[in-house]
């Protein structure tokens, strides 16, 4: 449970270079070539790199990514195939850092190829560990991918629920449900999500700023659900400006909470999943963050980073 006696600060990051060097960098070692892009770019600017392996779908660029990690003296990898192994891996990594001579442990987390569950584990564990280790200053970074056309199918839905139990959200049975659904380019997945949750009110978040072809693909994939929506309930967010996205989602949620139970379902770019988790922390424990996915049965699509990196900072602090 994410208690409100935890202090939490979210800030924009103007220049990533100004954040360096840092104590550590955490990233995924997955099938996307993009998963090690930031780790390679920032090589030498962090003292301990942790690559989390999923234990499944080890295909595409996975071998190449793993080989690169193994060759780096300051990088190690751990298997994070379950919620519990992931919590252990992240906590163990954070405990490596000594913050006695500095105001906070300072790390970078590259969310580009992390699963939503792993992102939630990182956010949750940062809070847990801040109790023991002091403030943890995390610069979350995201590297957009080069555009590749979406597949016709997104696989069977095998995960439909909270990303972690502490992100289920606590409901009030007297209130209706409000959902905020991020749009991705999986055909009709947002409509399926809306129909599955069957909310009293539904808002959609459309990503912009990545690439025109991506915007078009998102519009095509969601044409049917968007046709059913009031245009006032469809908001845009700029993928390359995560702090602005955070402010937008947070203010939307703050309004919705007055009369609804709120569940956020960040389909689409991973940066929105992070933004939603941060918003849920602000409104803990009431607001839920859910995932709707095929899990390991989903299509694995190897993608390359397009070279841009965007960032947002969160400071986790425990106050007794």
């Amino acid at each position, binding site marked *: 449970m994410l208690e409100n006696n935890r202090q939490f600060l979210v800030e924009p990051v103007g220049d990533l270079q100004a954040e360096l060097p840092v104590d550590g960098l955490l990233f995924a070692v997955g099938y996307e070539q993009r998963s090690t892009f930031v780790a390679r770019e920032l090589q030498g600017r962090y003292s301990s790199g942790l690559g989390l392996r999923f234990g499944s779908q080890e295909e595409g660029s996975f071998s190449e990514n793993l080989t690169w990690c193994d060759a780096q003296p300051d990088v190690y990898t751990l298997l994070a195939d379950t919620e519990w192994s992931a919590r252990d891996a992240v906590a163990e990594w954070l405990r490596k850092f000594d913050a006695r001579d500095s105001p906070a442990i300072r790390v970078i987390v590259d969310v580009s190829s992390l699963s939503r569950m792993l992102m939630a584990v990182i956010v949750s564990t940062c809070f847990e560990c801040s109790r023991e280790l002091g403030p943890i200053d995390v610069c979350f970074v995201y590297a957009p991918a080069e555009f590749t056309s979406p597949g016709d199918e997104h696989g069977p839905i095998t*995960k439909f*629920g909270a990303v972690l139990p502490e992100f289920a959200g606590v409901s009030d049975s007297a209130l209706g449900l409000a959902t905020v659904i991020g749009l991705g380019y999986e055909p009709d997945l947002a409509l399926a999500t*809306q129909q599955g949750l069957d909310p*009293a009110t539904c808002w959609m978040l459309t990503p912009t700023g990545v690439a025109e072809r991506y915007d078009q693909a998102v519009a095509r994939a969601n044409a049917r659900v968007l046709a059913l929506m009031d245009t006032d309930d469809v908001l845009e967010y700029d993928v390359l400006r995560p702090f602005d996205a955070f402010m937008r989602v947070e203010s939307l949620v703050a309004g919705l909470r007055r009369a609804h139970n709120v569940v956020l379902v960040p389909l689409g770019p991973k940066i929105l999943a992070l933004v939603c988790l941060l918003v849920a922390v602000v409104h803990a424990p009431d607001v839920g963050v859910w995932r709707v996915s095929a899990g390991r049965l989903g299509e694995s699509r190897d993608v390359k980073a397009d070279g841009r990196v965007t960032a947002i900072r969160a400071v986790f602090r425990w106050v007794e």
Partner: protein
Amino acid sequence: MTPPEPRPDATVRENIVLDRIDRFNARDMTATEVAHRFVAPSMFEALRTGFNTLMIGPRGSGKTTLLKMLTPEGLEVWGQRIAGHSDEQFSGVYVPIDVQLADQLEGLIDSGLPADICDASATSIYGLHVFRCIADSISWHCGSSVRRSSVNVLTAEQEASIVERLAVLWGVTVEVPRIADLQEALRHRQVRSLERWQRAALLYRHSAKLDISELDFVEFDAALKGAMEVLSRRLGWPGATRWAVLFDEVEVAPVVLQRLLLSYLRHSDEHLFFKIAIAPYMQGYRGLPERSRGSALNDYSVIELVGGDDESVRRFSHAFFAQAAANRDLPGLNMEESLGPSLLTPRNDRSAASYGLSSEQAKRFISLARKDPSFARYLEMSAVDATDLISAKDSDERAPFRKARQVAIVRDSYLSGPSTSSRRFKTRTDARRLYSGAETIVRMCEGSPRRLAFLTPGLLEGVSGRGRVPVGAQVTAVERTEVAFRSFLRGLRVSDGLGNILPRGVLSFVDLLGNVFHGEITKPEFDDDPVGSFIVDAAAGPLIEELIARAVNAGALVQLADSDFRGELRNVSAIEPMATSRGKRFRLSYLLAPNYGLVLRRCRAISLNTLLKRAAESRSGTDRQVAVGLLTGQAGLW
């Protein structure tokens, strides 16, 4: 950005609500909002009796609406709308399970803690939720509440007395004896209980140690019954001396809770009884000990929300349409007149309009006979003259037509002109026009309030100056409703085992069925009773059970009577929750018929195993893959 204002009350924004994608679920409305738009179905009177009741229906069949209408708030508002409906024998406490609570309970059961601890924790968390629902119900009668009754209101002293007693019973402390403080204290305890459980689960995974004293357990059963006794004794007005706890969406609860709640159907005393709404398939009913299992004959009554008689469904649908029209400032609009007659399912198949030579129906028969030699042979063998039905005095002469009518019409829509070398098929766009007209739309909605609520705004958008809805607008509205339903099926969660076989989840299976049944209608030799339903084999394994359970509870499959001679209803011996699909017979929901080109009537059944074997030889790669996967999964069992 300016934060959105809370949405205005639905009583004010009724016209707006109808046009939006959301708010098709009574779950998200207050009882007042539900009562303002309530159209009473035929079974409502039976539900209002003061006996234990088990209400069975799939998603969208109106369970939540009906239960909310049994609360003091719902009945009070409705009583003001409809005179003569305010004298109640009991008061109802509505207890839903929302998606967040369901997810928390599921997470708790799967947390890895010992099973008995998980069960006790889930019962406690749910218990605290039930207490919150009771407190919400009381708040309707409290002068300190913002939304409250205009009829039965407690004095401040009465409110304080009840709050203090309930706080003691439920183990919470209130600073001020007001209902809002009790609600807040219960919420606080529920949040802390969840937190303690999550921390315990975390520590247990790390150290395999569990300190039970750290967990918060609630004596659910005693605290529930004790609370209802407090209310029965302390609320003075008629109808408040006996309480019904109205448990909704029980099928999404963990099995341990399903069994506990179903066992309450055996309980009834002077203070308390239960009404429970469930989806047709209830895993928890399997394994419920006989001593806990009530009898549908002695302990509770059963109300089935799907499969009602045609006339009840028709009356309800027409009333729903008329009220939706009135809410949209279109008073007096009649469904039959607005949507017009149906070709596929005419209401009166004996009329001259139906069988006259110039009727659309006769034209279709003649058209099909010209281009389909097998249909011409069928007519010949039946000794019926398709061009002269109207002059046939003996209605028996029309009997073959009544049986074959829908099949012939659908077949005609898909079969293109005569061809000597091969049969040609039209696109399905033409055929969609078949699924219009009042009677056909009523039949496709199958009495489901949710389908009507989704479809009606689309129909009303197309109303012309003379109150008619053009066929094109009807087709668009039906298609939109069907797309949303298919998307819902697409998004249904399945296990990894099923996911490995079904690339689009439950929808893959539904598509397979639809394609097989359509193939039966358009196969080379005309068949007046094509295969259109299936019976699950006695040896069906867990994957098939899961698949059927999900499809039935979602409303994609409808259970039919096992016998083949009549009716759509499940048979009398089946007036219990379905705990297994084995040996049971199902058809596809009629809402799915336009997408595949199916008829809207009960058709012949074959075993699911046989059906899958046919699909395994299908031209469709996806159907073939799904069928082979399901057959392979069953190979050791069949």
